[in-house]
């Protein structure tokens, strides 16, 4: 957070309760950012897979919507498979 204007903000002078509150807030924002980062990555891949051909209008049709949802869900499924596979490998 080096872009923060910390010169005018005296975070250090806050009491422990306030500091804990801000720490929690930062944790939440970081988690949100991680989710958005994954969504960016997923949208990148799934847009390529699901919106094919020339772009004729500005709305997603039912097929494209279905494909996008499937794409995200299957990505999760594959991730679970990958984790399991690696766990199984460690057992051997």
């Amino acid at each position, binding site marked *: 957070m080096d872009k923060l204007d910390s010169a005018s903000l005296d975070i250090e002078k*806050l009491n422990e309760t306030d500091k804990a509150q801000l720490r929690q807030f930062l944790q939440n924002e970081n988690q*949100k950012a991680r989710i958005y980062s994954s969504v960016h990555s997923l949208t*990148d891949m*799934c847009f390529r897979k699901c919106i094919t051909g020339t*772009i004729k209008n*500005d709305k997603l049709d039912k097929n494209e919507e279905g494909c996008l949802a499937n794409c*995200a869900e299957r990505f999760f499924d594959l991730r679970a498979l990958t984790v399991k596979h690696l766990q199984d490998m460690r057992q051997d």
Partner: protein
Amino acid sequence: MDSEATKTEFIRQVRTEFALENAKQLIEKINEHCFERCVPKPGASLSSSEQTCANQCMEKYLSAWNHINATYIRRLQREG
């Protein structure tokens, strides 16, 4: 600055920072996809059909992003 004002300002700055980062990523992705889709052979300027395509592409990408976001969050809630 009293502590309430300090906290509020801190929260505001952090939220802005994160929102900017998110917007940057989104702009970068939209630009890559829509350039690829709509400007296959770059000319001396953007033609009106290229601009129309780009606008439609942006709208579609944003809708796709929202749809994936909703699906992702639903799945996270299911899996914990």
